[in-house]
């Protein structure tokens, strides 16, 4: 059981899974104990119900779903708080900059 769970969502979960690999490498080198995974936006609901997620990041190409996700994540976090949500920066996403996106997630988690 990792200390934190970070979920990434995009259209099909394909390109985001590439970013996950890079983020995991960044987490390892910074000794952060985090479970990071990617899935299609359509599968997000199931994961939110099944496990405790600490942070959700949307790929820039599905940023239009943000309002929806705000509703989805309300009250689903630890102790009934909202799960923090962010949209991944386009540049960081394109360059698959794992460290930068991980930093974004950490900032959201540590609020």
């Amino acid at each position: 059981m990792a200390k934190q769970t970070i979920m990434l969502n995009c259209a099909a979960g394909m390109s985001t899974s590439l970013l996950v690999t890079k983020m995991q490498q960044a987490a390892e080198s910074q000794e952060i104990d985090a479970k990071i995974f990617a899935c299609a936006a359509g599968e997000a609901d199931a994961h939110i119900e099944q496990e405790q997620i600490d942070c959700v990041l949307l790929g820039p190409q599905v940023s239009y779903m943000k309002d929806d996700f705000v509703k989805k994540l309300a009250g689903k976090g630890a102790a009934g708080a909202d799960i923090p949500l962010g949209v991944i920066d386009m540049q960081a996403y394109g360059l698959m900059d794992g460290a930068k996106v991980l930093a974004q997630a950490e900032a959201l988690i540590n609020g």
Partner: protein
Amino acid sequence: MEGNLQNNSAVQKFSNFCGKVGNEVHLRSLRDAFAMIMPLFILAGVGTLINSVIFPWLFKGQTLANLQVWGTLISNGTLNIAGLALAPATGFTLAKNKNYKNPMAAAIISLAALIMMMPQKISLTLATNAKPVDVTGGLSYANLGTSSMFSGIIVGLLATELFIWLGSIKKLKINLGDKVPPMVGESFNSMIPSILTASAFALVGALLAVFGQTDLISLIVKIIQEPLRSFNTSLPGSLFIYSIGNFLFTLGIHQTVVNGTLLDPVLLINMNKNMAAYNAHKAVPYIMNKTFLDTFGMIGGTGSTICLIIAVFLVAKQKSSKTVAGLSLVPGLFNINEPMIFGFPIVFNIPLMIPFVLQPVIGILIAYFFTAIGWMSRVVVYIPWVTPPVLSAFLATGGDWRAIFVHLLIIVIGVLFYMPFVKISERVSAQNAVVEN
């Protein structure tokens, strides 16, 4: 450079509008439903490939005929139930997207409602005689498959809407008092909306049959499915819609918002009819279909960016361009190109937005031309969109070697077309760097 366009309020408004429309719950549910039954279509594609391409290479005569029974059965369970599968899938995804507590109930009622719309009398051909006869007491693949795809979607959406709405009416809830276990009351409470929804659909079906001598499936095919299909899958229609979708991606919004909604349903109908015809050794009806568009208009991902990656390797001078292209090459071989779109970037980068939108059009036109003159086989196999370039063209056309040449020709033209824009883009970003410093 990018900033100007990104902060332009008209552009912002346009992309917000598209995002809102694409995210509309019914349209989203439709796309989710297609995603849900996609494995069936891929299975049909693999079945077609083995059955009609690989088996005939290896076997002849009675052995081949015996083996091909297997492929026919796969067709029956995939293409021939496309509409039947879409109705519950659409009901399920809509109920889920509306946060209805029991999406499976919506799926079941959608399935029931679709079957209620099926005609009483169907025309079938006897195995021993080619003359069609009218029979009763059955469902035919003709009505459960491709031709009821739209009916499946429409009935699934309507039945689920009605079902959820009826379920939300307080007056329809039965109050059995607090002595009765709550679950007993619950079971009644979902039964009433189900009964009313089913009754309404059966009534519509009965009215159409008695007074119109028709059924909803035929009506939807005639009034909605065929007009939409014939425009959206015509060469100008599909290129126009496809280009709008691709243009949206240059503003950072995934193209499926447009293409998945307007093109995929009708292109899949063409795809399925082609696969069915090819499996039955009949004339293949359509040039334009889902895999045709993906294979020749999306080489290496939306915008045919594999051409851009090669162009960058050939003419780019900036280290950053080459780094992103290098990073994007392997995902690009599987048609995944977000690193290029957001990292290069193509988004809000006017010099690259032009070829990104136009190269797919060029590719599709070239492929359409070679298919129309009969030099290249029509696309008859549904392949997963992650199939690598060149291999994709070969497999999609049922193993036509000429398709490889057409694909390579499109890639070469695409590289030449992207080249000048790579140079312009680098010049613009160099100027911007000077201005910023």
